[in-house]
Structure formats: structure tokens, C-alpha cells
């Protein structure tokens, strides 16, 4: 009894396929990119290839992420809040707070002892405190995003970045470079700035242990350290933080099936559109 979750995020599209017990059989991560047509089907196809299964063999498909309505072959669309919470519950049953640092938004989710969502908070209005902030700065520093984390750990200290706004911070970074401040110190300062913003957002929910950090931002070890600095204790990080939402989506499909929900069998297999 395989289940699938597909998470179409602003930046990356992720798919996870699990067996009947929720064990991951295969997963895939690809850029959401500019060519949105056929994207969902293509990503799902690649994930299926890894498992040797066909789409028709899947018992339940759940779509999530902000592009979730554009997955015509999905049996259900579920918000990423619920999916992230479900994914985290499977990975870290003790987690009571989830911090998701995504490509274009950041969220805090508060869970009860059973892993159910009690409350959440979200920033999608401002690029500060999102992956976009790091992307913009990495670009202007000419450093690959993937290297930012390790680089920041070599910093002797974090310089203070006084601008919250990504646009102004980019300008500030240029001035700091001109002053001769080292790149690791600047990046460490940026991580502290993002962490401060995200943790302040999540604080409005009340931060309760354990805290799990997920989303693309959690792949950055420097940012994780900065978040730990802000909350004052170590946080939990999934091995593949980008997949949490898609995993949660697959597991919710498993939950539905267990409750006897029968999926719509008339899955449409033609290409899909995104943003159109």
C-alpha cells in the first residue's frame, strides 16, 4: 500500500513515496523553476521511477505547498502547515514547535503533545527572515548558497547587520566588505539577523521544547546554530529538511486510508499548469 506526497513550494518541488507503514521508498527534489507545465507530473514520475511503482499503484496522493492546487492527479490538497506538522511528528515525536524556513516564507507551528497543530504563524509578506534573503545575499557575495553555512562557522564573530530589509541589507553588506570585514563574519551576521527575525515571529506562539527546524533554511548549519543561539538550546533537524512537507503529505494520505477514506480514482494524467 504505497502513498505519495508532493510539495510544490515557491522554489523547490518535492515528492515522497512511502510504503504502507510510512517508510520512505523514494523521494525527489527539483527546482520549481520557470517552466511550470507538466512539472508536478514530471516530479512525481521521477519519484515513482525510484521505487519502480506506477501512478495507478499509489493508494493515496496528497498535494501540498503553494502550488498544491495545480496537481490534478492528487486525491487531496492539504496546507503545508498540516503536512509539515505531520512530517515532523513522524521524524521527531517529541517536537512541540516547528520552525519552517522556506524559500519565500517562514512559519512557526505549535503542536500539542499528540502532534496536532494548535496554532501557527507565518511571514510571507517580507523577504527578510526567508530563504530569499540568503539567496539574494549569496548572489551578491558570489558564494554558492550551499557553502554559506560552513563558511559562517569559521567566523571569529558575527558582525551586526542593522538592516532588516533584504534590499537595504544587501547594500549594508557591500559597505561592510568595503570596510574590510571578512566574508565569514558578514555571513554569520546575516544568519543571526534571519534567525532573530524568524525566532521573534515564532515567539508570538510561545516556543516550547522540543523545537524542530525544517525547510531549505535547515540545510544551512550556520543558520541552525544561529537559531539555537536565539532560542537558547539545541534544535532538532531532519536529515532531509526539504522533504518534511512532502513526507507529511504522504503520511496524511496513509492516515486517510486507515480511516477508510477512499480516494478519487478518476485521476487526471494529462499535463498540469502552474500559475495559469
Amino acid at each position, binding site marked *: 500500500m504505497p502513498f505519495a506526497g508532493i510539495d510544490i513550494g515557491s522554489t523547490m518541488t518535492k515528492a515522497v513515496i512511502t510504503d504502507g507503514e510510512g517508510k520512505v521508498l523514494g523521494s525527489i527534489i527539483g527546482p520549481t523553476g*520557470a517552466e511550470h507545465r507538466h512539472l508536478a507530473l514530471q516530479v512525481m514520475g521521477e519519484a515513482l521511477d525510484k521505487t519502480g511503482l506506477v501512478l495507478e499503484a499509489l493508494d493515496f496522493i496528497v498535494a501540498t505547498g503553494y502550488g498544491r492546487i495545480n496537481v490534478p492527479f492528487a486525491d487531496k490538497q492539504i496546507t503545508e502547515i498540516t503536512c509539515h506538522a505531520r512530517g515532523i511528528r513522524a521524524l521527531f515525536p517529541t517536537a512541540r514547535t516547528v520552525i519552517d524556513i522556506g524559500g*519565500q516564507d517562514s512559519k512557526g507551528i505549535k503542536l500539542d503533545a499528540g502532534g496536532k497543530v494548535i496554532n501557527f504563524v507565518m511571514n510571507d*509578506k*517580507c*523577504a527578510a527572515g526567508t530563504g*530569499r*534573503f540568503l539567496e*539574494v545575499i549569496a548572489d551578491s557575495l558570489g558564494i554558492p548558497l550551499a557553502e554559506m553555512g560552513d563558511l559562517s562557522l569559521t567566523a571569529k564573530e558575527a558582525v551586526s547587520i542593522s*538592516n*532588516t*530589509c*533584504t*534590499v*537595504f541589507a544587501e*547594500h549594508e553588506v557591500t559597505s561592510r566588505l*568595503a570596510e574590510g570585514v571578512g566574508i565569514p563574519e558578514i555571513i554569520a551576521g546575516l544568519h543571526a539577523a534571519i534567525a532573530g527575525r524568524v525566532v521573534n515571529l515564532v515567539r508570538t506562539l510561545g516556543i516550547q521544547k522540543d523545537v524542530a527546524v525544517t525547510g531549505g533554511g535547515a540545510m544551512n548549519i550556520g543558520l541552525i546554530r544561529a537559531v539555537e543561539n536565539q532560542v537558547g538550546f539545541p534544535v532538532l533537524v531532519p536529515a532531509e529538511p526539504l522533504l518534511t512537507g512532502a513526507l507529511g503529505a504522504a503520511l496524511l494520505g496513509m492516515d486517510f486510508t486507515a480511516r477508510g477514506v477512499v480516494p478519487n480514482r478518476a485521476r487526471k494524467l494529462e499535463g498540469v499548469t502552474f*500559475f495559469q
Partner: protein
Amino acid sequence: MSGERACFAGVDIGSAFIKAVLVSRQKILASAMRPSGGRYRETAGDVLETALAQAGLSRERLAGIVVTGVGADSAPFPARSVSDISCQARGCRFHFPSARTVIDIGGQFTKAARLNTEGRVADFLISEKCAAGSGRFLQIMARILQIEWEEIGPLSLKSKTPVEFSTNCAVFAESETVSRLAEGARPEDLLAGVHRAVAAKVAMQAKRLKMEPEAVLTGGGAEDAGLVRAVSEALGLEVLVPEKPRLTAALGAACLAEENQP
């Protein structure tokens, strides 16, 4: 200095441009402007010399200098420092004596000030937290659309159906612009949409200040006819624009140098 009029200088050391204006008996004698290039000290001296040369005056003829702007501390000459808000207010009143609200859209920050009937600053607001209502937003747009800053205004005025952005954030708007362009949106409609977004933010600021007519729009942003129209629409009144909006702070500084001699 018997027989010769004393003359006064105002120098505005801004992050992008340094400007100098010379006045005597409330008349403008000369003005100069140059990109600061990050070298406040040298450029400020050069700009002042350029203005003096233009007026045919020697440095000795200057009876007083007021400096303003972010680099005011770097002035290479002895000068009194006055906040740029006070200088903007004075410069705008020079052109429009009845002005009660001054909105300065600069390269980075947007400032709004409410003036009392005497022209003194009663209250002001600076938006330095977010690029949404700032000139930077427009610079970013010019870069994506690959047009010059000067072309923004005229192009925007051609728009009949401004694009409505789903976001206020300049960073998110940048990616939205790229996807809208890919979908076939016209550059003028995108620009007009950005002008509306910036103007809405500026109007919010002006309302928080309880602005009063007449309102003057100044700073580099006031050179952009599309932005001037959008701000007028958002405020519900026709904003006044000084002749050389980038120079109003330096002009005000010069006036203050003349008026408030120790």
C-alpha cells in the same frame, strides 16, 4: 566685505550624490552636484569648489556654510551641521512658502515631514526599515526592465492598465516582475504598478503624519513624473514639485546658513 554681498553655502552630503547650493540675500547664485562615490570628504570639497567657480566667487567670500545629509560629519571645511529634514523643509518653503508637508523620496529612504505655519518641522517620519516605499524599489525595477532611471517616469505615464502586485516587498516584487514579463506584461504597466505600490506606502506614511496641504514632493523620486502622478493620486491632491528636487536640502541648508548666523 563692504560693498560686496556676503554669500552662504549649503552642502548636502548624501549616500549617492553630494550637492552644493550658494545663496545670497535669498537668491540662488549657483549649484553643483556629483556622485559621492563613497568618498564624502574629497567629493564634498570638490562640489563646493565647483559651485563657487560657477558663481565666480572665492572661498573667502563664504560667510557661512551649513552641511547636512548622512555624510555631514565628513565635511572637509568648518561648517554647522543641520538635520536633513530641517534643510528639506527650508528648501521646499523657498520654492513654496505655503508648503505644510514635505515628502522626500531619496535613493534609499523616504522621509515625510509636517511643517507648522512658520515652516518649522512639527513632526516627521523616516522609513528606513523597508524598501517598499523607497527609491531603491524603482532602481531595482529599472535594472530588471533594462531601462535608464530617467525613462521610468515617461514610460509609466503611458500605462493604461497598471499591474497589481501581490506583494509590497521589493524583493518579492522583483521575482513577480520577472514572471509577469514572461507572461507578456508590458513594461509600462509593470512600472505604473510599482509606482502605485510605492505611492501607497508613501501615502500611508503621510497619513500617519496627519499631513496638511500643500504637499511638496522632493528628492530624486520627484524627478520621476510617473511617481509624482501616483503619489498625487494616492494622497488625493496635486503634489508640488520643486524645480531641482535633488537640490532642495542643499538649498535649505544654504538658506539656514544665511538666516541663522551666530
